[in-house]
């Protein structure tokens, strides 16, 4: 029974990690708390659902489509809203409020187009076979969620660590000004970051949509609250921290439901966050930076 719970926790934690990854990437590189990330996540899920319903596309194609579609949405947000704000060097609260407005607009647009009620993936596209691994029965769907998440996270980590692009991004995260002086195309990379982050968010949306098989316009709200908890726990802007903290939150939630009771599930993320901030103000994995006089 415990193994079963741990496996559930792993798949849930993977989705949290994937979502938080995009969230923290935008904060690390652009310095923006993008509160429309939850709406982009929802848009990704709906895009995949539409593709499946309209052209009977296979699930893998739907996941790819969600990545591309929400990536484009992220690109648009960056061009139309975040770029002008960067150009005038607005204080970091201002883009945050702009993204609140964008999130509101996207949620309500989807609600207007598709209705407020729950939508489902048709049952014939969901892989429901179960495999028994070491005495634990595992659905193919859950395995798929874990696999997709791990592949995307590994690719991103390797890209950041090994490639020229990743090095440039890390330079921008240190100081956009210095990066520009070094001849890095900062604006272009901001665009790439926004699009990639949004794409990852969209894929996380499809995965959660498949996991719980319920899509609704406000599905991004709860995960965004959790995403905030995760990126703080992991240290703001810290990619590996966000992944670990996302997995950690998945385990903490599933285990607290199993052993304490389901009413406290939502308290877990924020209770943890509150405690961690009090003890370690820069997050569990974040490095401490004190301002010097």
């Amino acid at each position, binding site marked *: 029974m415990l193994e079963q719970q741990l496996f559930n926790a792993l798949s849930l934690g993977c989705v949290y990690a994937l979502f938080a990854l995009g969230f923290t990437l935008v904060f690390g590189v652009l310095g923006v*708390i993008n*509160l429309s990330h939850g709406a982009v996540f929802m848009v990704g899920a709906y895009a995949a659902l539409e593709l499946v319903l309209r052209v009977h596309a296979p699930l893998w194609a739907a996941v790819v489509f969600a990545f591309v579609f929400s990536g484009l949405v992220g690109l648009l947000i960056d061009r139309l*809203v975040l770029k*002008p*704000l960067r150009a*005038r060097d*607005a204080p*970091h*609260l*201002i883009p945050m*409020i*702009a993204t*609140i*407005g*964008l*999130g*509101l*607009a*996207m*949620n*309500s*647009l989807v*609600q*207007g187009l598709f209705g407020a009620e729950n939508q489902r993936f048709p049952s014939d596209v969901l892989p429901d076979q179960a495999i028994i691994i070491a005495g634990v029965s595992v659905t193919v769907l859950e395995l798929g969620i874990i696999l997709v998440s791990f592949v995307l996270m590994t690719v991103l980590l390797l890209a950041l660590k090994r490639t020229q692009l990743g090095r440039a991004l890390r330079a921008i995260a240190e100081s956009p000004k210095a990066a520009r002086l070094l001849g890095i195309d900062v604006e272009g990379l901001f665009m790439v970051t926004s699009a990639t982050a949004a794409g990852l968010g969209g894929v996380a949306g499809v995965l959660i949509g498949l996991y719980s098989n319920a899509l609704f316009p406000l599905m991004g*709200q709860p995960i965004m*609250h959790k995403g*905030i*908890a995760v990126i*703080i726990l992991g240290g*703001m802007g810290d990619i590996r921290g966000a992944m670990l903290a996302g997995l950690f939150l998945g385990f903490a939630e599933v285990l607290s439901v199993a052993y304490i009771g389901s*009413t*406290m599930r*939502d*308290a877990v*993320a*924020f*209770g943890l*966050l*509150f405690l961690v*901030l*009090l003890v370690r*103000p*820069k997050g569990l994995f974040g490095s401490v930076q004190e*301002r010097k*006089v």
Partner: protein
Amino acid sequence: MTTLEYFDNFWSIYSNLVLSLGTASLLALSIYLTLSCGMLAMANAAFMGIGAYASSLITMKAEAAFPVAIVGGMAAPAVVALLIGLPTLRLSGVYLAMATLAFGEVVRIVILNTEDWTGGALGLNGIPQATQWWHVLLAVVLVLAVLARLRRSRIGRAFEAIKEDETAAGLMGINVTGHKMLAFVLGAAIAGLAGTLNAHLTFFIGPNEFGFDRGVEILTMTILGGINSLSGPVIGAVIITVLPELLRSFKDYRAVVNGLILVVIVLFLPKGLWNPAWMRQRLGLRAKGVTP
């Protein structure tokens, strides 16, 4: 229709909207206070909730008079702010915002799970409708007066110094922690007042009214209006409260327009809507044009 009849008619339809302008202004001013001290604390929705529940329990369970409830509704969040203030206010910037948001979620979940007192997810129903229109008006005027006085006092200048540069302010002998605490606790009390008035106006409160979304909305009002003056938060509160009503004709797509208007305002009015310096500059330039 005579003017009086027209007014009666208007009031019977819109009295709730007009009064919620008052409570929204109070909330915007409560977060203005912490922002003016350089802190991005987002627990105001939670403090509003604590005030609303505390005062409603006072009028419903203890059947005490409304003034007692108001005092209780302001004191309860102030005490909570005092308790969580010391450890929380060490954090700065985004971390403070997130810790206070997290505190808000914890409050919401505690309310959900203490059903015997708070009614849990069902909320509290049948709160006596004790709030009169002049209570709200008086509260807004009083809070504005106190804040205006505060701005011009030593404390107000200390807030300003801390906002500009905390380290420098500390080196100049300003008690940084003390002043931050004062702003935080006072802000909590104002939010509690708004919660009290609102609860006794709508005679129903539920835990989800005081969650993340409300916290973000309160911040939006204040930033939108601008934090350079006291009029800014009030103007922001009015816009955020009235906008959904004005956009009723958009029906299902109302929030789309609402959200896009937010974006447009942020994009084109960098300092918030109410920006005295900019207006003075424009008027000054125009005056120069007239007199050679």
